[in-house]
Each structure stands twice: as structure tokens, then as C-alpha cells.
């Protein structure tokens, strides 16, 4: 598969070759593909989402763990707050588009785990989005997604942490900051992204039956049509190193 430019740009100045890697939050396997393309010795792609695990295996592993990269890839279905890897067992960690789906409590727990499994001298690359600028149409859809999630699950679906926040946050977990670069500006929220977020908002709203859930689902659908696509905001990449 093609490695997205976001991932390629985030990894281009990083010594990935020959390292044991953890992709924290595999999503569609984008960072896993980048790590393998850059010569990772082994990649553990961890996700708690069965569909994401399947997608990553299919796109990157070439099927059920087979294919060219199959022997270097292990897709693990697990909660990132309890990563099924030993202490100090990986040399490279990516969190590509992960932090925005973690509320502050989860972010803290995940950061503890990433720091635990990272060996001394390990690298960490965190790619995420600055908060959406005021007045952006896509911000309304994210607000509906968050409202539905708060009602149904008692926590937000999305939290966009400023780069300065995550920089200090991971420094607080012992990671030495190395560099920041801009991956995308503006961020292209395409029709497929907007549809995916609207679907998620509507599905989440359906978990909270009744007037409020129905209204949020309907609003998500309306916004999907109204927004179409929008290019706005910034996606950034932070690189850190663990001393040692």
C-alpha cells in the first residue's frame, strides 16, 4: 500500500530501520505501513477495534498475517491502557492520530503504558491535530460527535490537544522533546472523512435512545450534507526520545 505523506514526513528524519516498533492505535494501519517501509525489524500494531485490526492485517500484512511483510507484523487486539508487551521491549513508538480519540484520563493511562514498554533510548513520534479553529464548519460536526459520546458514554469522542500541550505532557512522562514539524496545513477533511465522522456521531447517538439522541443523529446527517468537505486547521508531528 502507499504510505500516506503524513506518515512518511513524520518518519523521514527518524531512525526506524532495524527497530522493534509499536504502533499505538493502528487505525487503518497507516503508520504500520510507514514503519515497515522504513525497515522496522518488527511492528506490533495495537488496537482495541476489531475492524481496525482486520483492516491493518489486510492492507499491510497482505491477508491473515501473510504477505511480504507478514513475518514482521503482529496485529494485537488490546486496550492501550494495558499493552500486552513486556517492560522496555520496543525501541520505537508511534501515536499517529491517536491522542485526539483519548480523553484526558485515557491519555494519561496510555502515556504510562507507552513509557513502560519503551526501552531506554527509544523514540516516540506523536502526530495529531491542533484544536479546530473557531468558525470552522467541521467543528460543529465534532461538537455533535462529542455531545453524542458524552450522552451515551460519559466522555468525549474527540479531544484536540495543542502541540504545546502534548509536548509538555510527554516531557512530564520522561520523554525528551526533539522536534516539531507541520504535516498538513490546512488539514483536508474530505467527504469521506466527514462521512466517517457523521456515521460515528449517528451510531453513538443511537446508543442513547430518546429525543436527544435522535436530534443529535439528525444533526450529524444534516451537517454531513452541509459541510461536504473542508480544509482547515493543522496536523503536527512531535518527536521525542527517552534518555538512556
Amino acid at each position, binding site marked *: 500500500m*502507499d504510505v500516506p505523506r503524513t506518515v512518511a514526513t513524520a518518519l523521514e528524519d527518524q531512525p526506524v530501520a532495524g527497530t522493534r516498533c509499536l504502533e499505538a492505535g493502528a487505525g487503518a494501519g497507516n503508520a504500520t505501513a510507514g514503519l515497515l517501509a522504513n525497515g522496522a525489524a518488527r511492528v506490533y500494531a495495537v488496537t482495541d477495534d476489531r475492524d481496525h485490526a482486520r*483492516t491493518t492485517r489486510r492492507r499491510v500484512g497482505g491477508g491473515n498475517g501473510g504477505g511480504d511483510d507478514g513475518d514482521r507484523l503482529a496485529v494485537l487486539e488490546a486496550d492501550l491502557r494495558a499493552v500486552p508487551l513486556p517492560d522496555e521491549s520496543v525501541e520505537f513508538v508511534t501515536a499517529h492520530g491517536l491522542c485526539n480519540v483519548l480523553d484526558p484520563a485515557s491519555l494519561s493511562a496510555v502515556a504510562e503504558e507507552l513509557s513502560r514498554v519503551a526501552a531506554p533510548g527509544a523514540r516516540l513520534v506523536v502526530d495529531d491535530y491542533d484544536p479546530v479553529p473557531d468558525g470552522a464548519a467541521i467543528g460543529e460536526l465534532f461538537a455533535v460527535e462529542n455531545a453524542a459520546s458524552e450522552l451515551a458514554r460519559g466522555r468525549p469522542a474527540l479531544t484536540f490537544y495543542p502541540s504545546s500541550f502534548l509536548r509538555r505532557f510527554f516531557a512530564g512522562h520522561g520523554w525528551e522533546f526533539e522536534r516539531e514539524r507541520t504535516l*498538513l496545513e*490546512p488539514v*483536508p477533511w*474530505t467527504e469521506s*472523512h466527514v462521512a466517517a465522522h457523521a456515521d460515528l456521531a449517528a451510531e453513538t447517538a443511537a446508543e442513547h435512545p430518546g429525543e436527544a439522541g435522535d436530534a443529535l443523529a439528525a444533526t450529524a446527517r444534516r451537517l454531513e450534507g452541509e459541510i461536504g468537505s473542508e480544509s482547515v486547521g493543522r496536523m503536527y508531528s512531535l518527536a521525542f526520545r527517552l534518555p538512556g
Partner: protein
Amino acid sequence: METRPLGGTGHDSSVMTFGAIALNWLEQEGANQLVEHVLDYGVNHFDVAPTYGDAELKLGPKLRQHREEIFLGCKTQERTYEGAWRKLDRSLNRLGVDTIDLYQVHGLEYDEELDAITGDDGALAAFREAKEQGLIDHIGLTSHGQPDLILDALERIDDLESVMFPLNPVVAGKDDDEYDYEAVLARADERDVGTLGIKAFAGGSWPPTDELPEADRPFANWYRPVTAPDEIRERFDFAAAQGLTSVVSAGDPKLVTMILEAAADYDGMDEAAQRSLMERVRHDDSPVPEQLHH
């Protein structure tokens, strides 16, 4: 309009090249007006071919009037010595000029064609004779084919002074060798060969003809072009920012003014914005549904 050196030719080409196939779709009066319009914006590099309907004939009058202002590129699909001479004579006659500044091997697609044009009885032998006789000044090559083939051509043709090939955010976003036109750009730069970008404004293929008959297509391009002014502008900026000498305008006259405006305003495109555009077209084109992130 910004100009850039066309390799080692000694000519500085405007960052936009006028694709004169656009004249084919106009009556003579409209063609004359379009040439004046393009020149008003500072475009100094034109590209035409005998296969573009009667574009050569329609370019002729204004080309002759403004001959000194126009660096004229023309090309031939002939692969043999005889054929290339015949087509060159024909183009000179149809254009009504004494010389062509850049004469190009048109649309090289297969390895056998590269063997043919470089052979003793090949088209390049005719190009070189014509150059000695002062009928053409420089030799170029155009291809929509595999980047490897163009790289081979750069190796094998010592007197090649320009290459024309596709470059846009769709192909730039693909990693496979069959789309690696960035390698062509890099090699051409190393060898001081000029680079002309085509398909900068391609949005995708036309629907199959049983869904949309050719006669119902709203644009004359081979491909479905992007057509909104903002899209045209970012496509132009992207292509020019890759470091091409010049970006060839799309073949439909309805798009030319928008491209001229974009070219006249060009002042670079930062890398995050280039990635933003590649990412957007990658998702438009992606078989993976439902991605929340980039």
C-alpha cells in the same frame, strides 16, 4: 510571469507553457484572440503537435506575427528517419515558420520505440540533421509512459534538452515505481535537462462511454479536469512547486484563463500545503472507506 531556465537550452521559459491544442476547438478569430491573451500574461513557451487537429494551422498567423516572443515547441509521433523528416516538413509548412525552437519525440511509450528512435534509421537521426540545417534548435522528448522508460531515454540520448511528463498530486502521492515521475524530475535536473509538466489539472478518468458518451463530455481534455478556480490554482501551484521548468496548460480553452491567472500569481506553495493536497486527492481516490484521520 516567473521564468525558469529550460535546462541548458539558454532559454528561460515562463512557468506556464501554453498547450496550443486549445486552439483546435476555436474558430480562427477566437484562436487569434487566445494567443494574444496568453501573450498578454507573459507566456513565452508554446507547445503544439501535428496530431492536435488543426491547431498548427490556427496557431500559424499569430505565431508568425509574434515569432520573436514565442519559444515554439512541436513534436512528432514518427519513430523513423523518413517519417520524422516528413512530419517536420509538414509542421514547418502548416505553422508557416522557418524554425522550430524545440522539436520533441512525442508520446514515447515502449522500450522498442526507444530502440527505434535511437537506431541508425531512427527519428533522432532526422532531428540531428534538421538541427545541423538550422530547422530546429533543441531536441526534447515527451511521454505518458513509465518513468523507467524516460530515465532510460535520459541515459541514452546525450543531446536531449527537455523532457515532458505527467506530474500532479495524484501521481506524486503514489509510491510505486510506475508513478515515480519525481525520479525523472530529479535525474533531469542533475543532467541540466528542462522539465515540462503535463496532466497537472487531471481530476480523474472520464466515466465509461456507455455512461457518458464522448460527445456529452463537457471538456475537450483526454481526462476529466479539475475546473473550479481554487482547484486550478492549487494544482498549478503544486506542479510549479515540484521544481518543473514549466507547467503545460490544459487542452480545453475554457480552462486557459484560470490557469493563466494561477500562473501569473504563482509565488510558491509550502510543503505542508503540498502534502495537504496530496492527502486530499489520496482520500478521494482511496479504496479504504471510513477513515477518521489522515
